[in-house]
């Protein structure tokens, strides 16, 4: 039997939280619920599971790569064609500290930035389920239920004080 994705829009956080509880009671699993908000809302407020992220891992990875690159630049390249200057070592350590530090930071930052893109599938210009009110601070709760139960859930949401409950359709943002 086919499924329908419904979208309930709430004015405030508390009804949204209640709505999610209700959905849980009515047997909709977290995997079938998604919340869209105009400000970051901590998962515990809505009683949602902790969302995963790889960003921090990626940053660390970048840092390591950058460190390696810095080491190569400072201690590797002189051995490709060493030139003496000012009676100093061909591969001095103090500048090495600077070079490796900068490279580490650069790569870490780049990795973090790209991490956001990778994790949240940016850029993404395909049609998506969305409502403009979200950026006005409303809380939008998506949930997928069986076609037949749609009516039931709509009523439940309305009783919980949803502004509107309608089937969500994907559109060009």
């Amino acid at each position: 039997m086919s499924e329908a994705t419904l979208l309930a829009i709430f004015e405030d956080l508390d009804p949204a939280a209640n709505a999610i509880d209700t959905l849980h009671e009515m047997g909709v699993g977290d995997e079938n619920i998604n919340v869209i908000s105009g400000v970051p809302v901590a998962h515990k407020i809505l009683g949602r599971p902790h969302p995963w992220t790889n960003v921090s891992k990626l940053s660390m990875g970048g840092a390591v790569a950058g460190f390696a690159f810095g080491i190569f630049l400072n201690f590797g390249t002189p051995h490709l064609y060493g030139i003496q200057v000012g009676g100093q070592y061909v591969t001095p350590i103090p500048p090495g500290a600077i070079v490796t530090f900068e490279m580490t930071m650069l790569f870490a930052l780049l990795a973090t930035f790209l991490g956001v893109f990778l994790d949240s599938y940016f850029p993404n210009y395909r049609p998506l389920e969305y409502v403009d009110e979200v950026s006005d601070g409303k809380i939008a709760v998506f949930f997928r239920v069986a076609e037949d139960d749609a009516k039931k859930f709509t009523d439940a949401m309305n009783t919980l004080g949803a502004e509107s409950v309608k089937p969500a359709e994907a559109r060009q943002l």
Partner: protein
Amino acid sequence: MTASSKYLSGAHEAHDAHHEEDPKQYLMYDPKPRGEMNAMVMESMHTTSWKFWVVLGVLSFLVVTCFFFAWGYMIDEGLYVGGVMRPAYWGVFLVNTVFWIGISHAGTFISAILRVFKAEFRRPFTRAAELMTTFGLIQAGASIFMHMGRVWLSYWMFPIPNARQLWPNFHSPLMWDLLAISTYVLGSTMYLFLPLIPDLAMARDRSTGWRKTFYKILALGFRGTEGEWRHLTVAMNFFAFAIIPVMFSVHTIVSWDFAMAMRPGWSSSVFGPYFVLGALHSGMGAVAMVLFVMRATMKHMDYFIRKEHFDALGKLMLMVTFAYTYFFFNDYIVQWYGGDKATDNLLHWLEEGPMAWMFLQFVFFNIVIPPLLLWSKKVRETPWLLALIGLMINVGMYWERYLIIPVMLTINRMPFTWKLFQPRLEIFLTIGTFSMFLLFYMIVSRLIPLIPVWEVQEGQMTHSLRKVGKAKLPTISEFE
């Protein structure tokens, strides 16, 4: 007896007055619905008066003539159209570089350090400051390339494999500069973009026509799902912590360009922190000016940017001034006390030579006047006054860099070569960089939301007034 009672009563009144201030004067306790704030921000982006376009036209003319034409002319003719010579091989270009890098430090300081320390007043103007970082760094980079004798070969400084089997020289402070500045410019641009995404999405939802496309492309299809928010906040926190050491390293390394050199007046171990503080000093001043202009020229900004922000900024400036004074004195007295002959000559030259007026202005504008004024809350809460102090500080800081580079270069260990630097084409190119900075800022102020609305709303949601007994006490709750 009477007198004392008078004093007491006076004190008492003051005490009461202090208690009866209205929490509504703080942005965080004066919430508006998100939709309204969005509308205000969008409107502030859309509304332009004819004055705006006139200024824009003038600036773009200046950029074309004084920046692009002048630079092209210099590349074509050679550096002799400038004023550099023996012994002042470095001139105004590097002064501009150091100055712009200094300006750029404000953004990072406000948006990163204040974020880390959860200073709530930062929320409305983090972006305005962050923009200064990026644009300032662009000007700084341009100035570095202007100063090069054969700029068309500047790619030789990048570590790329080549047929000559040669790599850049990592002993050279200039190489450290290159790495640090490129790191900083990339990092701060990304750090500018990340918090911008939700606001771009907001703008996307509220605009039509080419703006719609523009925002749509930039917003990358951001919707505000829990996942997206999570990644974003994690990344922003990481940036906030990571960009701070980068910021310190950048200006320290810039200072090392001078401190590593075997020259009187330059070779000083305190230059690193001295320059960083100097950078913050000028940066704060610049922020004050920008906020003043924003508030005065853009619509609805008096809601977002209030007395409290100027006050807080003033306090920051005061603190930085003191720190800067400490380092200045530190650098100066060590040099003076050492009494090395060359250094002695140099200091005399600065204090009583033909550029003494510059030295005095620098001391007064940066060290004497700001603390005297910023002391009073009234001054701090008067936007134009604060902006004026900011201007003063920036002039002073520009003089400081000017003294450190061409004027100090005049005096070296070979008195036979001493000569005073006179800027020639540099004047035009300096005007060019300044115009370009302003031009960018004006254009962007109408393209992206200068106020991070979601951050403001988040702040307002976390702030509340809790009634304890008779008093309503401000309360802040953590959402994350």
